[in-house]
C-alpha cells in the first residue's frame, strides 16, 4: 500500500465536537413527550420470587407503563441465552432487574418503584466459584435446556457455563523430562470498567411495530441481532442508532440494559422512553470483569527451557454468563501466553456464582491469564536463580514454534523478543535504580510480556461502503463505533491512502445507524483496523475500478494504464492527460449530452480467512486470526513502613504491525497502562458477607486519578507488518492494560523482595508479606 497519510499524527476527526461539549451521547438526547424509565432491583443475591404486585404503581398519576417478566418473559445472551430481561421465578444477584416503570418524570418513576410490592423467599447463595463447582447450590437448574452456541461446553451439575480444554503434546511426558517442577497459585477479584458515561438507552416503538433504539453501544449490529432474537422480531423491524459512546472498555458490547427500556417502550407505542443508569446501577447491574483463581504447575529444564505447563483457571462468572463463555475460552486457548511450551494441559472453567454479572473487559481473559503466567515466570526464574527477563527471552514464541492451539508462528506474526528488549531498554532494566536516601523507601523494576489475538467467532464479518459525492468527496459507511479509540480518524487515514485522495475529502458517517450503515460484527477485541481495513481495501479497489472503467472509455486507454490521484484520473504514461474525478464519479457526460457510467459506490466485505472451531477435547485448531505481542515494564517505590506503592515509571511496547496514527496509538497505550494500574494496586469489587456489593460508588470504587499518574510513561512500538492486512496493521487497543499488574508485582519484588500473587497488591498485603519475610 502506498502510504501518504497512514503513519502520520493527524488530529482526531471528532476533536471539535468533543472539546466544545457538542458531541452527542445518548444521555444528551431529548424527544417530545419523552418518558423516563426507572428499574426496581433485587435486594437479595439469591431468592425465589413469590409474588409481584404492581397495581399501586400502575395507579399512580403520571405512570405510563409498568413492566415485569409477565409482560416481558424473554431471555438474552450472546453465546448462551441465560439472562432474563426481568427476573422471572428467581433473582440471582443483588441489583437484578425485577420490574421497571416509565413515567412522565423521573420523580414520578422513582415514586412508582416504591409502590411495587415484591415477596421474596431467600435461597442459599454461593459466592466462591470453587465452592459453586461442588454443585450444592445450583444457580441455573435449567442450564441444560438453555439455547447456546454448540462450541460451549456446559457442566450443569457444577454451575459451569463453559469448560475449555487445551491438550497439546503430552504434559506427563513433559514433566518427566523436566529438571524442576514448579507450582503456584494466583488470583484476582472482580473489577469494574468505570466508563465515565454510565450505560443508557432510549427506545421508541411505533404503530407499525418498528422498534428504534438509541444506545450507548459498542456493537450496534450485534445489539440489533440480540434484541431481535430476544424479542422474537424480524431484524428489519429493529433499528439501532449509536451516537458517541463515553467509554466502553468491553462493558458496552453486545446487549446490556437495552431490553428493559425496549419492554417499556412496547407498552406505550408512539412515545420515547429514556433510561440512563445511575453510577450505582452501572456498577451493580451492567457487567464487571470476572474474578479468577489459577493453579499452575510448570516443568522446566535446568537451563530455563519450559517443557510442560499445566494450569487450571476458575473464573467467577457471576450470575449470568454474558461474554464470560468466550472470556473463559480465550484464556484457555492462549495460556501460557507469549511462550513456547511443547506440552500443555489447560482447563479453564467459567462458573456461575451469586456475584455481579461478569462480562467483556478490555483484554478479555488476558489480563487474568497473564497475571498467573507472568507471576509464575517470575517464580520459575527465582527457583532457577535466573534473571526473569533472560528466562522470558529464552522461552518466547519464535517463528516455527506452535502456540497452545497448535498454530504455527511466522516472521510476520510479530516479534515479542523485540518488544521485551525495547521495554527493558526504556525502563533501564538490569541497572540498579537509584535508591532514595530514606532507607524506608526502596525502588525496583520489573518487566512482563503479553500476547493477545481478537477473541471472536470464526466468521466475525465486516463491511464498508464508499460513496462518491458529486464533487468527488467521499462518505464512508462502516459500523465500527467511535468509543474514544480514534477509529474514525484512523480509518479516514487508511481510506485516503486506499483511494489516493485527501483525508479532508472523506467523512465517516456518524452516528451509526443499522438501517443505513453496512454490517459489522462488533467494536471489540482490538480488531477494527485489521478487519475493516480488509473490507475497506476491497471497497476502495471496487470504487477505483469503476472510476477507471469509465475513464478508460473516455480516454481510450486500458484501465490498468490509469491512475487516480487527488482530484483527477490520469494516464500513467502521459500524466498530463486526465479527467477531473468529479466528472467521472456520477458517470461521465460527453459534450453532446450523452452519458455513461453512473454514481460510483465501492463495496467491500470481509470475513477472517481460514479460521476454524477448536477441537472440543484438545483445543487444537485455528481460532485466532492475528496475534499482537507486547511487553510492559514498571519502576516502583515501596514504602516499607506503610506498604504503599508509588509507580514512578511505566513503559509499554507493542508490535502494532503498522502504526496508523502514532499520536492516537500512544494515547491508547498510556490510557491502557493507567487503566491497568488500578487493578494492580487497589481496584476490586467488594461485598458484604451476605453478598451485597459495597463498592458501588466512585468513593468506594476508586479508579486512578491524575494524582496517581506515574512521573514518566513511555509508549513505543515495534512494527512487523501483519501479512493478513493490506495495511500491515494489527490491534493494540486492549493490550496496554494486560501486563501492567504483573510488571508492577515484579518491580515490587525487585524493590523489597516480596511476591504478592493475589490482586490487588494492597499496602496490607505488602506489610504482611514483609513481616513474614523478616520473621
Amino acid at each position, binding site marked *: 500500500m502506498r502510504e501518504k497519510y497512514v503513519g502520520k499524527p493527524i488530529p482526531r476527526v471528532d476533536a471539535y465536537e468533543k472539546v466544545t461539549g457538542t458531541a452527542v451521547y445518548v444521555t444528551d438526547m431529548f424527544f417530545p413527550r419523552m418518558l423516563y424509565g426507572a428499574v426496581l432491583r433485587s435486594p437479595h443475591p439469591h431468592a425465589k420470587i413469590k409474588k409481584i404486585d404492581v397495581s399501586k404503581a400502575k395507579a399512580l398519576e403520571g405512570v405510563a407503563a409498568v413492566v415485569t417478566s409477565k409482560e416481558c418473559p424473554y431471555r438474552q445472551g450472546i453465546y448462551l441465552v441465560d439472562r432474563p430481561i426481568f427476573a422471572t421465578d428467581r433473582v440471582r444477584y443483588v441489583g437484578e432487574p425485577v420490574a421497571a416503570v416509565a413515567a412522565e418524570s423521573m420523580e414520578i418513576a422513582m415514586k412508582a418503584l416504591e409502590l411495587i410490592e415484591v415477596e421474596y423467599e431467600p435461597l442459599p447463595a454461593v459466592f466462591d466459584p470453587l465452592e459453586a463447582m461442588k454443585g450444592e447450590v445450583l444457580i441455573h437448574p435449567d442450564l441444560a435446556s438453555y439455547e447456546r452456541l454448540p462450541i460451549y461446553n456446559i457442566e450443569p451439575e457444577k454451575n459451569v457455563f463453559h469448560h475449555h480444554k487445551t491438550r497439546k503434546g503430552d504434559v506427563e511426558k513433559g514433566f518427566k523430562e523436566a529438571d524442576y517442577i514448579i507450582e503456584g497459585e494466583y488470583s484476582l477479584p472482580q473489577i469494574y470498567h468505570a466508563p465515565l458515561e454510565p450505560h443508557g438507552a432510549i427506545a421508541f416503538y411505533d404503530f407499525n411495530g418498528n422498534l428504534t433504539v438509541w444506545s450507548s453501544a459498542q456493537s450496534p449490529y450485534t445489539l440489533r441481532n440480540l434484541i431481535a432474537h430476544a424479542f422474537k422480531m424480524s431484524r428489519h423491524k429493529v433499528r439501532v442508532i449509536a451516537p458517541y459512546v463515553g467509554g*466502553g472498555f468491553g462493558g458496552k458490547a453486545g446487549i446490556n440494559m437495552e431490553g428493559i427500556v425496549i419492554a417499556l417502550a412496547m407498552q406505550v407505542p408512539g412515545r420515547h422512553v429514556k433510561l440512563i443508569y445511575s*453510577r450505582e446501577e452501572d456498577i451493580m447491574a451492567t457487567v464487571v470483569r470476572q474474578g479468577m483463581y489459577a493453579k499452575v504447575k510448570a516443568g522446566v529444564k535446568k537451563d530455563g527451557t519450559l517443557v510442560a505447563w499445566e494450569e487450571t483457571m476458575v473464573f467467577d462468572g457471576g450470575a449470568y454468563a454474558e461474554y464470560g463463555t468466550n472470556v473463559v475460552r480465550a484464556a484457555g486457548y492462549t495460556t501460557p501466553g507469549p511462550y513456547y511450551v511443547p506440552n500443555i494441559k489447560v482447563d479453564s472453567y467459567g462458573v456461575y456464582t451469586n456475584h455481579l454479572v461478569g462480562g467483556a473487559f478490555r483484554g478479555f481473559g488476558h489480563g487474568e491469564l497473564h497475571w498467573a503466567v507472568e507471576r509464575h515466570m517470575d517464580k520459575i526464574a527465582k527457583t532457577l536463580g535466573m534473571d526473569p527477563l533472560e528466562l522470558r527471552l529464552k522461552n518466547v514464541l519464535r517463528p516455527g514454534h506452535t502456540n497452545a492451539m497448535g498454530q504455527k508462528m511466522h516472521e510476520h506474526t510479530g516479534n515479542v523478543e523485540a518488544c521485551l528488549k525495547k521495554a527493558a531498554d526504556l525502563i533501564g532494566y538490569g541497572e540498579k535504580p537509584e535508591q532514595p536516601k530514606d532507607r524506608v523507601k526502596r525502588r525496583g523494576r520489573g518487566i512482563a510480556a503479553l500476547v493477545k489475538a481478537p477473541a471472536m467467532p470464526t466468521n466475525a464479518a465486516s463491511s464498508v461502503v464508499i460513496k462518491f459525492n458529486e464533487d468527488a468527496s467521499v462518505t464512508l459507511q462502516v459500523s465500527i463505533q467511535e*468509543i474514544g479509540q480514534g477509529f474514525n480518524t484512523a480509518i479516514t487515514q487508511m481510506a485516503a491512502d486506499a483511494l489516493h485522495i485527501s483525508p479532508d475529502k472523506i467523512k465517516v458517517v456518524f452516528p451509526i445507524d443499522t438501517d443505513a450503515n453496512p454490517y459489522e460484527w462488533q467494536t471489540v477485541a482490538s480488531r477494527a483496523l485489521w478487519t475493516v481495513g480488509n473490507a475497506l481495501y476491497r471497497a476502495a479497489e471496487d470504487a477505483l475500478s469503476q472510476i477507471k472503467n469509465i475513464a478508460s472509455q473516455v480516454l481510450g486507454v486500458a484501465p490498468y494504464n490509469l491512475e487516480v490521484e487527488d482530484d483527477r484520473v490520469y494516464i500513467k504514461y502521459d500524466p498530463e492527460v486526465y479527467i477531473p474525478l468529479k466528472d467521472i464519479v456520477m458517470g461521465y457526460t460527453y459534450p453532446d449530452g450523452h452519458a455513461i457510467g453512473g454514481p460510483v459506490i465501492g463495496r467491500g466485505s470481509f470475513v477472517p480467512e481460514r479460521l476454524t472451531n477448536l477441537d472440543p477435547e484438545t483445543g487444537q485448531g485455528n481460532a485466532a486470526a492475528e496475534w499482537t505481542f507486547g511487553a510492559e515494564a514498571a519502576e516502583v517505590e515501596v514504602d516499607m513502613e506503610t506498604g504503599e506503592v508509588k509507580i514512578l515509571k511505566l513503559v509499554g511496547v507493542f508490535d502494532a504491525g503498522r502504526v496508523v496514527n502514532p499520536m492516537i496509538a500512544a494515547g491508547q497505550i498510556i490510557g491502557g497502562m*493507567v*487503566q491497568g494500574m488500578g487493578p494492580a494496586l487497589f481496584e476490586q469489587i467488594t461485598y458484604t458477607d451476605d453478598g451485597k456489593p459495597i463498592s458501588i460508588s466512585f*468513593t468506594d470504587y476508586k479508579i486512578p*486519578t491524575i494524582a496517581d499518574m506515574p512521573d514518566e*510513561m513511555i509508549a513505543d512500538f515495534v512494527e512487523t507488518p501483519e501479512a493478513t492486512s493490506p495495511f500491515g496493521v494489527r490491534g493494540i487497543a486492549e493490550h496496554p492494560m494486560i501486563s501492567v499488574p504483573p510488571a508492577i508485582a515484579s518491580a515490587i519484588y525487585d524493590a523489597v523482595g516480596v511476591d504478592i500473587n493475589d490482586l490487588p497488591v494492597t499496602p496490607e498485603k505488602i506489610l504482611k508479606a514483609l513481616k513474614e519475610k523478616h520473621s
Partner: protein
Amino acid sequence: MTITLNVNGKNVQVDVQPNETLLDVLRNKLYITGPKEGCGNGECGACTILYNGKVVNSCLVLALEADGAEILTIEGLTKDGRLHPIQEAFIEENAFQCGFCTPGFVISTKALLDRNPNPSNEDIIEALAGNLCRCTGYQTILKAVKRAAEKLGVEK
C-alpha cells in the same frame, strides 16, 4: 419556583423543583448538555461548571440556591465559533478519547488558569484531582494544561 440564571452571558428564567440540582436544570430544562452526569455525587467532575467564577460540581448545587448566579459551562467558552486556547491545546495534545470527561476538564483548567496563569505540575494535579478520566491516563491532559497556559500567556 422560578429562578433567574445568567448562563454563558444570557439571562434565563426557569421553573425548578425544590430537590432539583443545577446540573439537572441545565441539562434537562435548558438543554445545556455540555456538563455531563458521571456520578451525580460530587465524585467525578464531569459536571464541572464555573459558578460565580468558582469551580463547582453542578450535581451538588441545588437549583433553588443558584437563583441569580452567573454560570459558565463549556458551551460558553467558544467565541464567534472560535475555539478557546484551552480547547485548542486539548486538541493539539490529544487530551481526550471518548470525550465524556472533557467538558469538565476544560472548565477545571479554565478555573485554574484564571487564578494561576503559570501553574506547576503540582498545581495542575491539585486542580484536576477531582476530575476522573478513564481513557487517557491523564498524561496528555497535563500537557494540554501546560500548553494552554503558554498560549494564554502569549495572548496577553
